[in-house]
């Protein structure tokens, strides 16, 4: 199996595939007098496209816009400030994914708070937070629950464990995001003209291929579910170009080895048991109705937002244009801070912090060639 998987980065396959995509895109250009435009919704796609060099190689052939699929980047500044503010209380252990550590709050980042002596722990597996809660009964353990549909089931699993163990010192600060509402927002706002979506492979594991039929039925736009290795990405971009060339709107599951038609129902059921839809604020967009999940009232004892009284303050204003970047309105290079005041070492906006943020990918992988 490992050998089969390794084929996805075999130069003998991926080099001619890249040329094939270029040729097809050239044909598109001849027919429509413009480059085809696609949005890669997922931040891991942004990262993989830039790291492998696909984005750079296709620059003159296909316009690939990075979409709102980096959980850290789309989180509203007020939520970020609130999560950092949580670390200020006494007897608290903040548990988080590494992604959140360097995100700049209006005042500090969690990394800076840890340096000052606050107990902030980076976990690889969120379920470790349960053990931390059991081992530290005198402390309040708060998990910072960010993520899309791939990660939310794992937050639901935390809820299940906490419920089973009747923990009274454990809670989650939920600020999760759902894919469909933001795609619909983008399509309805009409701010970005697209020929199709490169759909997120790992979110689709949970959601399933059928979840995307609304793209074709309601908006007549294509979507191809893609994997993350070079051959997988090139194959999916090639399919998007072909659909656009043919003027066809269709959903293609181009990651069938892990994505099924119906998705992972065990994961969705667990989500449905503990969480319910809520309005969520997205950076640069504002509130989108029913675009996130929050803890159901029956489980309010695990809801950190209800347990701790955090006053949300008006965030510090910066010239950061992450909000426009995540919806594809502008490219990172068009932000006046990009690469100057804002770099991965001293980030001003979240898109520069997260490894999969568009600004970070543009800074690390696209900049400085020549």
């Amino acid at each position, binding site marked *: 199996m490992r050998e089969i998987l390794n084929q996805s980065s075999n130069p003998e396959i991926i080099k001619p595939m890249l040329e094939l995509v270029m040729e097809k895109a050239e044909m598109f250009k001849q027919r429509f007098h413009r480059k085809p435009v696609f949005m890669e919704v997922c931040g*891991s796609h942004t990262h993989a496209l830039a790291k492998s060099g696909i984005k750079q190689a296709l620059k003159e052939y296909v316009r690939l816009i990075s979409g709102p699929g980096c959980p850290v980047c789309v989180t509203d500044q007020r939520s970020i400030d609130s999560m950092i503010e949580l670390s200020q209380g006494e007897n608290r252990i903040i548990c988080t994914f590494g992604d959140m550590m360097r995100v700049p709050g209006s005042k500090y980042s969690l990394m800076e708070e840890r340096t000052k002596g606050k107990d902030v722990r980076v976990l690889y*597996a969120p379920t470790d937070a349960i053990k931390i809660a059991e081992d530290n009964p005198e402390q309040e353990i708060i998990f910072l629950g960010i993520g899309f549909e*791939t990660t939310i089931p794992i937050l639901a699993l935390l809820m299940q464990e906490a419920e089973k163990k009747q923990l009274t010192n454990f809670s989650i600060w939920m600020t999760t995001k759902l894919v469909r509402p933001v795609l619909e927002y983008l399509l309805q706002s009409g701010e970005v003209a697209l020929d199709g979506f490169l759909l997120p492979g*790992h979110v689709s594991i949970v959601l399933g291929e059928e979840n995307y039929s609304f793209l074709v039925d309601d908006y007549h736009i294509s979507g191809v579910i893609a994997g993350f290795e070079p051959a997988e990405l090139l194959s999916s971009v090639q399919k998007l170009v072909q659909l656009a060339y043919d003027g066809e709107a269709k959903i293609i599951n*181009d990651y069938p080895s892990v994505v099924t038609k119906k998705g*992972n129902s065990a994961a969705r059921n667990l989500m449905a048991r503990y969480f319910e839809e809520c309005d969520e604020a997205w950076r640069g967009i504002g509130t989108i109705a029913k675009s996130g999940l929050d803890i159901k009232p029956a489980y309010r004892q695990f809801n950190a937002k209800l347990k701790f009284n955090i006053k949300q303050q008006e965030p510090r204003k910066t010239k950061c244009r992450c909000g426009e970047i995540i919806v594809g309105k502008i490219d990172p290079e068009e932000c006046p801070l990009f690469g100057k005041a804002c770099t991965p070492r001293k980030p001003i906006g979240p898109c520069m912090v997260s490894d999969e943020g568009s600004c970070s990918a543009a800074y690390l992988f696209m900049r400085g060639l020549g």
Partner: protein
Amino acid sequence: MCVGVPAKIIEKHEYSAVVDVMGSQTNVGIIFVPEVELGDYVIVHAGQAISIINEQYAKESVVEWRKMVDARNSEPIF
């Protein structure tokens, strides 16, 4: 959006399993893939196996890529 890593199940318990990624091992939860078996490859995200990799489909994808590459040299593309 989400890092997901292919990993092989080398030890299976009721709710968890030990997976191997090219010689590095870690514990993962398998509650979302209850039907998983020893030797299967899974996609791991944040310490949980979230999908079983279907070997047949994985092979078919490779065959499709190879065909794409071969066809490019012999036929007009549109």
